[in-house]
Structure formats: C-alpha cells, structure tokens
C-alpha cells in the first residue's frame, strides 16, 4: 500500500510516486518498441537489431512533419501531432516493409547468423543515413501540452502528472488493446501464431508466410512509430544516434518479459522503465543505463525464458 505521509522529511514518498509516474511513461514507450522485437523473434526467430533505428527514424519523420505543419502551415498542436503520428506510422511501416524485403527475406532460409548480421548492417545504415541527411545534432520541437495536474501538494515536493504523460499511457493502452485483438481474434493474428509454431504447415493450409511475415514487420514498425512520436512529444528532442540505447533497452524489455511473448514485452517495458527511473533517482543517473543492461545480463543468465516466456517450443 502506498500511504501519503505528508511533510515527512524530504518528501520521500512524493519523490517515489513521481518517479513511478515517470517510469510508467518511459516504460510504455519501451513496451511499444519491445513488441516489434518480440513479434519478429516469435515469427522468424530473428533478433531485428535495426528495430531501434526504425524507432529513431520514425521519431525523425514525426519531427519533420510536425515542424512542417506547425511552423510553416500554422496548424494547431493537437491536429498537427495526430497527423504527424499517423504519417510517421505509415512511412515507417513502409520503410520496415522495404527493409524486410531487401535485407531479411532472402536470408531467412540461410544460417541463423546471416539475417542477424544483415540487421546490424541495416541498423548502421539507418543511423548514418539520418546523420547524413539531418545532421548529427539534437533536433527539437517546441514544447507541447505543458499543462500538469498536481496530485499532491503541500508536501516538500509536488507530485505532478502532465497531460503528455496521460496521453502517452492512454495511447499505449488503446493500441495494445487493439493489437491484442488483432493477434487473438483476426485471421492475420491466427496466421501469425500458426507461423510461429510451424510455418511450413501453415503454408500448406493456405497461409502466405511471406505476406504474414511482411505484415508483422509493418505492424511492428507502426507501433515503433507511435513510440517514436510519443518519445519526441515527451522529451522534445531526437538525434540520429537515439536508436541504439532505447533500442537495446526495449530489447532488454522483450528478453525480460520472455522473448516471443506479447504481454511479456509490455510488462518488461514497464519494468525496465521503472528500474531505469528509480535507479536514476536513488543511486546515480549516470549509471541508469548500466542498471538496465545489467538486467539484460542477469535475465539471460538466470532466467533465459523471461518472466512470461514459455520454455523453448521445438521448431520444426
């Protein structure tokens, strides 16, 4: 139970609560990215190392469109953001479709490391492509939706919840619900789960495996683009190397949750978000990345199938 003990020295409870809110916000973004890792791993058994850079790319696409709409066309913040996020989802999905088609599909029957190496190459390509076209520095947007709701006051520290944070968590929640429905109830989701278990058999039942894998990349990219847009909204800046660290953290989230498991990816994302912010608060924010990556190492050593992962299903 959380109890508010107002006026306690330093407002320890308030600080904790504030970091909890920040952690959940960050964790939602990690969760959205982690789904892309976990889905692709589930269906073709490959860690798509370029996924973090796809996320970065999507943030840039959102940034450019947002600036175009607000600065040049004078559109209001809310409609501009909605359009920018939608356009970023569509364009990033197209990018990821092309990446799968060009860099991964032909290597799918090859030895296991081949698509992985190709993915690392694609990651480097995307980061450098954005560096060359957009420059190496931070790009920023003017702050949007700065209003905050004050949850507690009168203590040593006011706990606040910003509109942006509400938006991030709400958008994440709605999208996850829609995504869950697609995976559980639609022919596409059924085909994805069938391909995960036995792609050859699924093909013999009329499932177009190439199309199903392509759509998996498209959906993963669309979710990453939502994460990219929300990340941009929350932190206001993005640069071309921003794909790597959030990418590896989302990958950590997917591993922690149990790679291949969708609810695991979300849970892992929230946990990594919380671990990172709380570590930053109570220990050292210089070492918050170390904390997150230690989780990756510890999970891989002691709990390789993660929190919600099933033990290895034999792949035929």
């Amino acid at each position, binding site marked *: 139970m959380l109890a508010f003990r107002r006026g306690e020295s330093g407002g320890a409870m308030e600080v904790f609560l504030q970091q909890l809110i920040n952690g959940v916000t960050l964790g939602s973004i990690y969760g959205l990215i982690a789904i892309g890792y976990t889905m692709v791993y589930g269906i073709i058994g490959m860690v798509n190392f370029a996924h973090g850079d796809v996320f970065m790319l999507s943030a840039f696409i959102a940034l450019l469109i947002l600036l175009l709409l607000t600065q040049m066309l004078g559109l209001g913040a809310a409609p501009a953001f909605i359009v920018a996020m939608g356009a970023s989802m569509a364009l990033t999905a197209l990018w990821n479709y092309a990446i799968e088609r060009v860099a991964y599909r032909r290597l799918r029957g090859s030895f296991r490391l081949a698509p992985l190496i190709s993915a690392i190459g694609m990651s480097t390509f995307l980061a450098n492509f954005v560096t060359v076209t957009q420059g190496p520095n931070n790009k920023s947007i003017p702050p949007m939706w700065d209003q905050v709701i004050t949850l507690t006051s009168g203590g040593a520290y006011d706990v606040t919840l910003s509109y942006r944070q509400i938006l991030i968590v709400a958008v994440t929640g709605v999208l996850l619900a829609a995504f869950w429905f*697609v995976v559980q*109830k639609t022919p596409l989701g059924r085909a994805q789960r069938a391909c995960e*278990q036995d792609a050859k*058999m*699924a*093909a*013999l*039942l009329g499932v177009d495996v190439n199309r199903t894998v392509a759509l998996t990349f498209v959906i993963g990219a669309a979710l990453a683009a939502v994460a990219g847009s929300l990340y941009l909204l929350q932190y206001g800046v993005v640069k071309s190397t921003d794909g790597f660290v959030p990418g590896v953290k989302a990958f950590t989230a997917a591993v922690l949750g149990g790679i291949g498991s969708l609810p695991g990816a979300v849970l892992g994302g929230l946990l990594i978000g919380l671990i990172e912010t709380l570590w930053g608060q109570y220990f050292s924010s210089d070492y918050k990345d170390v904390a997150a990556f230690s989780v990756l190492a510890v999970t891989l050593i002691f709990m390789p199938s993660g929190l919600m992962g099933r033990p290895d299903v034999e792949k035929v």
Partner: protein
Amino acid sequence: MSARWIDDPILRVDHLTMRFGGLTAVNDVSFSAGRGDVTALIGPNGAGKTTLFNCLTGFYKPTSGRIAFSSGRLDDARIEKLTRSARKHDGEIFLLERMADHEIARQARLARTFQNIRLFPGMSALENLMIAQGRELSRAAFFSIAGLLGLPAWRRAEQAAVDQATAWLERIGLRHRANDPAGSLPYGDQRRLEIARAMCLRPTLLCLDEPAAGLNAAESHGLAELLRAIRDEGETSILLIEHDMSVVMRISDHVVVLDYGQKIADGAPREVREDPAVIAAYLGVEDPDEPAVEAVLAGNAPT
C-alpha cells in the same frame, strides 16, 4: 469395367523425378488419380511415397516432370497448352510443380496431413481448424481493419467459419474439447483433428500420409468409415499413403505401388494384390508363395 482414373482423372502425374544430390527418391513416376476415388499409394519403406506427396503439395520442387490437377476436367490439349505457356494455371487446370505451397492449398485446393502429426499444439482445436479457413476470412477481415471495426461482413464471415469448424468438431466427436490446446488431445483425436483441419480447406483432393499409423483396430475402423463418408459426399477425392492393408483394401478404389522410387503396379486393389511384382517388393525376394506376404496383402497381418 472402366476406370475413373483413366476416364476422368483429377490428378495426372507425368514422369515425375525428384533427386536429392545423388539420391533419386522418385524416378520417372507417372500415374493418375480418379475424380471421386480413394487412391492408395503403397510400397515398402523408402519407396518414395512421402517424397511424392511432398512434390504434390509444394513442399519440394520436383527435379523434373509435370503434375496437372483440375477440379473440372483434365483436358489433354489444355494441359499441353498450359505447359507451353509460363503460367501456373488457366483458372481451372493447375500445374502444381510451378506453384508455391500456399497457392496449391488456396487455389488448387489440395490439402494434406502428415505421418507425424503437425497440428499447432499451442492453439485450440477450434483455432487449428480456423487457420484452414483463412482464405475466406482474410478477405472479409481486410488486413484486420474490418475485424477491428467489427464490420457486419466480417462478423458474418467469422461466424460462418466458426460454424463450419464446429460442425467438423462435432463430426469427429471433439466438440466438447473445442477450446483445449490441440497438443493436449489424445493421439487418436489429434489424427482425426488433423483430417478435419485439412477438410476445412474444402479441398478437392485430400492427401493423407499414413492416417491410420498408431491407431488401434477400432480407431482405424472408425477412420476408414470417416474417409468413406468424405468420399461419398462427392466433393473430395482422396489420395492416401497407408501401410495398414486392411484399411487400403477396405476403402480404396485404385492402388498405385511404388518401390525404390519407381512405379511397379497400378490398378484396382484386387489386381494389385495378386501382382507378382508387388508381392516380391513386399517380401524382397521372388517368392509369391510365401504365406506371410499373402497375409499382408490380404490385409490380415499384424501392424
């Protein structure tokens, strides 16, 4: 007696060869399967039966040869015309060796089962059947968007699919286990579920790889009944690989015998049973008087 596999074939395999490196698993095999028939493909272990199945269903690309298939009439002139073109099918006649596995299932409507059961163990029995209905459903779902919006056309398609799948579960006596993971069902139930799943494709040709393997006498009797019933409904012809001769003799109209990748006999069950080459192949020596072989071919042997 005129034979349907000559007068009205649904499948015609011409000079099919499949090589793996230096090994020729199927060597210049030609045969036809009649529309509405149960055609049995038999032969000793390693005769190339499963390889031939894998060529039919697009699992392997054959080294050479032609596999023509039609739900209408297999007209020689049209097959030749299609062979000269670069096309996979002309809307009615399909050249299976040119098609990918999912196209064979979706367009030509060939369905198959495996010797070692290949259900999706983590998915429910009902969902296993619904995978095979993806063709109708995915059109209605329109990239899941219609599904997400809950449009009436999609709801109807989904309901129709659930109804058809439920009817099949009822028929194989598994309705009460519709929501259980397929992997948790007993072996005999899994076998029947796999056949039901193949039938949910509404196939014109159902290819069964040893459907009676591992079943006890009562179960294999029930299976023969089910296959006969499927055949008698007239929508689906059956091609099966089977070792259990009692099943083969009871239900098949036509038997094709392979040995070492080559066809050694082809005809009505009674003729094939008495064919000296077949008897020799099963025994491995030229001694047609051996009582054990006759027992095997008469369908009385222990399996």
